[in-house]
């Protein structure tokens, strides 16, 4: 197709339009790489609209450039101008005429969005939103249904699968959760000690750290880490399975994807979240003890005594009961968004992001509800 003599000796292409003589001179061989040069010259001709035009072709033209030249020639001839091709007229022209004669419709015009288009787009997004809610309902229903059957027979719960997910989302998350909990307790102890010192109330740093970590920070930060780690993984895993038709394959084999894919993940995360929270709580308290001993010279034995008196019977449980709820929210959001992936890789990316953002939002929202509720019942 490239009729260049040899790539070892590229002849540089040049295109010049001489308006006075109404001549377009094309020198050298023109491949697609030279198309911008040609297009610029053709544009000059187009804006000048000469009465007559002589095109002198010195070298060969590849298919793409020939097509651009042909378009110009046809446009000018259509406007009643005289166009003459001279020199090495590309032999592709016959092929181009042939394919141009085929009736294949026309390119859809991009055009300006009219008011009707915008309205239709608005309606479309509304419809998709409602469809999304409906999908969430169907998702919830089918999950409950498969949970109901799994309740009756242990085999349906797929224990190996649950254990695998517990390992991936729980055991492997321990290091990062531990480090985050340690750091956050260091931060809160540091700020607490600094703010309380002017009042001579540094000892309350212990209360601040222990109550803060046990009631709120431990479980909340664990949930946020897990949302970023596991929520996204769930959405991406299921999304890729959707794109590969693996979900359809399961269904075609008579297996229930909710039972095989969704339920084990949800169960695993609900079981694992409290365990991770225990790790976070422990590391948080350790970090608090470490920092108070360093900042306010509080011996460890004193820290433990102070801790014992500051926390109530329910402080630990106020944090702990939230853990499975957060786990449930994260797992449901991740798997639901994963199963909503359709058609394209962009959808996969979008829904993975949505899964993380929404699960973090839901976790914090639920935490706020818990806070109000615990205050009301004095927990």
């Amino acid at each position: 197709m490239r009729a260049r003599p040899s790539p070892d000796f590229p002849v540089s292409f040049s295109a010049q339009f001489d308006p006075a003589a109404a001549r377009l001179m094309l020198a050298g061989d023109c491949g697609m790489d030279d198309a911008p040069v040609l297009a610029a010259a053709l544009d000059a001709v187009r804006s000048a609209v000469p009465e007559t035009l002589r095109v002198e072709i010195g070298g060969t033209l590849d298919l793409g450039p020939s097509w651009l030249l042909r378009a110009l020639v046809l446009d000018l001839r259509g406007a009643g101008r005289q166009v003459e091709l001279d020199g090495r007229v590309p032999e592709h022209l016959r092929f181009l005429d042939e394919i141009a004669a085929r009736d294949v419709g026309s390119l859809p015009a991009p055009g300006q969005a009219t008011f009707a288009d915008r309205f239709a787009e608005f309606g479309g997004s509304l419809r998709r939103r409602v469809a999304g809610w409906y999908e969430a309902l169907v998702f919830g229903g089918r999950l409950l249904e498969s949970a109901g059957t799994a309740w009756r027979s242990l085999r349906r719960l797929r224990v190996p699968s649950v254990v695998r997910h517990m390992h991936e989302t729980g055991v492997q998350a321990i290091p990062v959760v531990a480090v985050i909990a340690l750091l956050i307790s260091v931060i809160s102890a540091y700020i607490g000690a600094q703010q309380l010192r002017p009042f001579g109330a540094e000892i309350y740093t212990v209360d601040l750290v222990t109550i803060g970590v046990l009631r709120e920070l431990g479980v909340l930060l664990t949930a946020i880490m897990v949302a970023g780690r596991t929520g996204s993984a769930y959405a991406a895993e299921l999304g890729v399975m959707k794109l590969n038709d693996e979900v359809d394959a399961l269904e075609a084999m008579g297996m229930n994807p909710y039972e095989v894919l969704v339920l084990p993940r949800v169960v695993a995360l609900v079981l694992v979240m409290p365990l991770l929270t225990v790790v976070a709580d422990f590391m948080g308290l350790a970090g608090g003890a470490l920092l108070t001993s360093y900042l306010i010279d509080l011996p460890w034995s004193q820290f433990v005594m102070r801790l014992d008196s500051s926390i109530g019977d329910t402080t630990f449980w106020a944090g702990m009961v939230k853990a499975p709820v957060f786990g449930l929210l994260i797992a449901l959001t991740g798997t639901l968004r994963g199963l909503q992936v359709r058609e394209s890789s962009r959808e996969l990316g979008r829904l993975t992001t949505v899964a993380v953002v929404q699960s973090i939002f839901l976790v914090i929202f639920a935490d706020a509800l818990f806070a109000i509720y615990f205050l009301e019942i004095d927990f």
Partner: protein
Amino acid sequence: MAAVRPLIVVRDIVNRFGAQVVHDGVSFEVMPGEVFGIVGGSGSGKSVLLRTMLGLRRPDAGTVAIEGREITAMDDRELRDVKRRYGVTFQHGALFTSLTVAENVTLPVAEVLDLDEPSLARLLELRLRMVGLPLEAAAKHPAQLSGGMVKRVALARALALDPAILFLDEPTAGLDPIAASAFDELVLYLRDTLRLTIVMVTHDLDTLARTCDRVAVLVDRKVIVDTLEGIVANDHPWIRHYFHGGRGRAVRAAQGDGRGA
């Protein structure tokens, strides 16, 4: 033909994955303007060979030269220039699912060339017409296309920079016989009118019989290259099985009238 320099020269290629040797001294040449078929059993390394020829994989030994330039010895920048000289279609189309057909086909041009919108639109129309796609398809996303159309869009994208060589990986896999034979005709038409050189990996015996001038068969980590008649007459057990099994009979039947072009 003797005076014509081969377009692609593959010399003594060795490819290994750990202890497993996939290719052990594979050599062949592809002549300008021919349709060159590559066949082989599953796991015989057809895709690895194709990736080696494309410069996507460096062989453990041996050389590949395209238009006299050794791509196996090139750095990435030189290789990029060579890559513009060929077009590739992948087995499953490998269209970018988040882009429309128009964006998919225009991408290689818009990426390397500084062209104005009207010219890009004209070139898009050319490529779609070349592969026989209805122009309305331009606004669609790959997920909305049939299998045959996906293959055609992939071909249009491969043709976007007027390549001298086309590499087609299983171009007719997954197409119904009508769509597959239409695709064969399209390949032959482009070859005849544009004098393209085409290298295709295929399992489709009909496509092989209809389009390929010469065939390379990968067996026992080596390659046997011959015309289709020669290959069919070869008495290597795997080749006999391949061409003389139930599916192969149709090819031999088609040989009488199939290869007029």
